[in-house]
């Protein structure tokens, strides 16, 4: 199996495990030196920051599922587009739960060395997310 193919499988496996809320795999799939380039300066980064952000999303959208729709790998890099769907049943930043179904596209690049994710660069269509949460019923 090529490095690219192996890395693609790792990202698919990560997605599956996160959808099942299996946080135990995080230490196995992420390097201890993992860095997210999505986190603004001054906020927790690394695996601690990752766990914190997952907790925020799982609290706000406890049923959410994020499914990979497209994945392209080359060498140590994997780029993905995903589709996020969930129900706003918990506090999200400053927003109390609305009970609304939401959906948005996300995309990201991963850098993987020796079967561990060492870096991530991601984007989420949060403008669409907030539009769905704020549109009057």
């Amino acid at each position, binding site marked *: *199996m*090529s490095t*690219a*193919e192996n890395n*693609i*499988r790792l990202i*698919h496996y990560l997605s599956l495990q996160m959808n099942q809320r299996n946080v135990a795999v995080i230490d196995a799939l992420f390097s201890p030196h993992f860095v*997210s*380039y*999505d*986190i*603004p*300066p*001054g*906020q927790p980064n690394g695996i601690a920051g990752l766990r914190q952000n997952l907790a925020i999303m799982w609290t706000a959208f406890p049923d959410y599922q994020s499914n*990979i*729709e*497209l*994945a*392209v*790998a*080359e060498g140590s*890099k*994997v*780029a993905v*587009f995903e*589709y996020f*769907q969930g129900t706003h049943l918990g506090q999200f930043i400053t927003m109390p739960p609305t009970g609304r*179904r*939401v*959906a*948005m*596209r*996300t*995309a*990201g*690049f991963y850098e993987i060395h020796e079967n561990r994710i060492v870096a991530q*660069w991601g*984007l989420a*269509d*949060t*403008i*669409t997310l*907030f*539009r*769905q949460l704020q*549109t009057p019923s």
Partner: protein
Amino acid sequence: VTLAARSGNIDSRVTFKGVSRSYSGDDSMDQAAQNKSIIQRFYEEALNRRNIHLIDSFLAPQVSVQSQSNAALLLNRDGFKNVLTVQWRNTPDHQYRIVDMVARGDEVIVRLVATFQHRIPVGNIPPTGRILEAKEICFYQLQRGLIIRVCTLVDEAGIMQQSLPTPGPVARW
């Protein structure tokens, strides 16, 4: 591969029907390298140098261009040129910097940063004159050397953060 766009809060999105697959073989490496070169030139020669007359040499006549944050708006080649014309008038200093690219077969995914001066309102936020950075990830599909499909995801929330009277912290690439 088909492109479907439906309006509405939940379903207003591009779908990647039939492309939920992963490339792994090496048989398409030459094609991927050529396609990456085409995308690089598209940004440098057409977009960054404002060469509207070069657009037809990069985009196929049947191209579809879609942005995630306004998925109901599906542009053809002429529509894309119209958007560029408005963008270049509003932000004449607009420049793209490709940060990373991954390609396999006929598909290229690009990670890039656009910079431009805040000369027109962003949402309800009046121009500040600041230089803003927009992070983007774009999907391209090519056929016989021409782009047939574009789907872009832009960090619009990050642009708004930078535009505020007191800018919020923003992660940078």
